[in-house]
């Protein structure tokens, strides 16, 4: 990464009369449209030539940090390597030109790939069927909750107006429940971070539509009492939802369907190696156990008896439509290629190796960083800051100092169970040498905290941008070029 800030905006390069396009010449006569329906002003877009545009964005990219730049141990985000063959396939012009309204008989290959991925995810999740349509993990959660809503509606069970989420859950869980029209009830965590089953039982009644869990949970611990939890949830007539944010360590080990989950989503951009794209696009396929397939959203890809593929657009029991078409198609190509590259045996190695990497880092640092929950973690773990609190060095300071040392920071101040959460997820695509270098950096920061805390507290020192004034940004929002 370039250590010097490239601070120009594309608007700074604008010069009247320049342009970065050419268009074919056409001989058709000019059309006159009614003036009162036309735009009167000219949108203030930059006027720039192609070389300037390319140099501008190339320079911007050098002020960014990605998985390809360095180690990115961002907890719960599974920042694993994004294979290049996936990108090469997804850029195929044969896909680029396919309109979503092409009739099914002209897109049999595209539908077959969708169906293959759907089937492979069903096998990995232990589910009956998947829809790939949801655009993101949060969209998957929303879709999954709508499946649950449609299921209860189909039984005329209108009393179920609430969804239970653990107090350790990611904010998206309660937010998705609210968008799906549910009230949120929190269930407590025990000191080891797992769900308090007694508290859960006391809240399970005829008003509960679903319980949302991740397993392993947000502190990286496996909910070992999941069979009992599933039994209690089902006995109360509710459904159990699996947030796939933490699926990675379960690959090759256990399937959510076998744990008793009824509905789940998977983040293809986490577990299945599709790039995070600076925030998107991702994909959040949703799986359901056998018996719930009819509630999956339209449109739905099915295989016909004669071995062809078709699209159902108007299934009446479906929850409705959550996307215009079949979702973020090129993301599916990448996940499909990833699974084929690893194969049955390779996919099964992902979970244990991700877990090994997390435990290795945890063991190497636990003498300096406070480990609030004992026992082998899964793909990630949480430190509650440094053990030695006397230096006044916070988790935020540690995160910023890591930037100086060439690493992306872990997830910080989440989960909310601890004051100084530092959530580390190394993923299976990191070598021992990389992990050792990260461990050395974390140890160095602990030592600096003891010997020269100011250097940590005032970090970062060596990044293109330095600590920004967030308060000013929120107090006087400047959200476009014209505001500057």
């Amino acid at each position: 990464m370039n250590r010097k800030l490239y601070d120009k905006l594309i608007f700074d390069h604008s010069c009247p009369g320049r342009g970065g396009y050419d268009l074919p010449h056409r001989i058709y006569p000019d059309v006159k449209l009614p003036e009162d329906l036309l735009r009167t002003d000219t949108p203030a877009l930059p006027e720039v030539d192609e070389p300037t545009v390319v140099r501008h964005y190339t320079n911007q990219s050098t002020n960014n940090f990605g998985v390809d730049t360095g180690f990115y141990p961002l907890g719960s985000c599974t920042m694993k390597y994004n294979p290049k063959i996936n990108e090469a396939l997804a850029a195929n012009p044969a896909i680029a030109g396919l309109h979503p309204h092409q009739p099914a008989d002209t897109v049999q290959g595209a539908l077959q790939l969708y169906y293959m991925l759907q089937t492979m995810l069903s096998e990995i999740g232990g589910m009956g069927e998947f829809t790939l349509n949801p655009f993101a993990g949060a969209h998957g959660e929303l879709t999954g909750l709508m499946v649950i809503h449609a299921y209860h509606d189909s039984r005329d069970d209108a009393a179920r107006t609430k969804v239970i989420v653990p107090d350790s859950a990611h904010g998206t869980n309660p937010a998705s429940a609210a968008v799906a029209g549910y009230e949120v009830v929190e269930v407590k965590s025990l000191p080891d971070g797992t769900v308090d089953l007694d508290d859960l039982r006391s809240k399970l009644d005829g008003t509960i539509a679903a319980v949302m869990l991740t397993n392993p949970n947000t502190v990286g611990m496996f909910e070992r009492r999941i069979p009992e939890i599933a039994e209690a949830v089902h006995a109360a007539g509710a459904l159990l939802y699996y947030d796939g944010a933490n699926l990675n360590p379960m690959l090759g080990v256990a399937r959510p369907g076998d744990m008793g989950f009824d509905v789940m989503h998977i983040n293809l951009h986490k577990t299945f190696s599709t790039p995070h794209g600076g925030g998107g696009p991702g994909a959040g396929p949703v799986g359901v156990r056998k018996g719930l397939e009819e509630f999956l959203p339209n449109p739905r890809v099915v295989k016909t008896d004669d071995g062809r593929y078709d699209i159902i657009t108007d299934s009446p029991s479906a929850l409705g439509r959550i996307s215009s078409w079949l979702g973020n198609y090129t993301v599916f190509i990448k996940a499909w290629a990833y699974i084929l590259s690893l194969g049955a045996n390779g996919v099964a190695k992902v979970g244990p190796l991700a877990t090994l990497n997390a435990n290795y880092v945890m063991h190497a640092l636990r003498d300096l960083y406070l480990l609030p929950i004992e026992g082998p973690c899964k793909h990630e773990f949480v430190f509650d800051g440094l053990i030695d609190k006397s230096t006044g060095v916070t988790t935020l300071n540690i995160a910023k100092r890591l930037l100086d040392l060439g690493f992306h920071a872990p997830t910080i101040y989440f989960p909310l169970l601890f004051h100084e959460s530092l959530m580390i997820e190394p993923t299976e695509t990191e070598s021992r040498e990389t992990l050792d270098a990260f461990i050395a950096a974390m140890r160095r920061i602990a030592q600096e905290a003891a010997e020269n805390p100011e250097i940590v507290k005032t970090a970062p020192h060596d990044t293109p941008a330095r600590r920004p004034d967030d308060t000013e940004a929120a107090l006087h929002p400047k959200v476009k070029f014209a505001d500057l």
Partner: protein
Amino acid sequence: MIYYLPTHEYARIEDNIAYIGISKFAAQQLGNVVYVDMPEEGDDVTAGEEFGAIESVKAASDLYSPVSGAVIEINEHLIDNPRLVNEDPEANWIIKVEMNEPADLEKLLSPEAYAELCAKEQH
């Protein structure tokens, strides 16, 4: 007289008028206030229900009304300078309400009871 809600709003009472804002304790917990979402003059508020929200950079909380009545004034200084809440939360009230249910006050916390609650929350 001043009364508090357990959600950290205060109501300072002068005759039939309640000046509603957030406590010093709440202002400290929240950090630099960057925005106060206020109702409009003439809106009705109900004791125990939301009337707005207050935001800092990294946190936000809903504002609950200690009393029922009609909003007769909002503190317009907070639109341009929300940080006044940090400077002196009790002088810089958020809304002024004409009460229509004086019995609401009986359910609120006294300054002593509220101080006890804050002491507990700090631990």
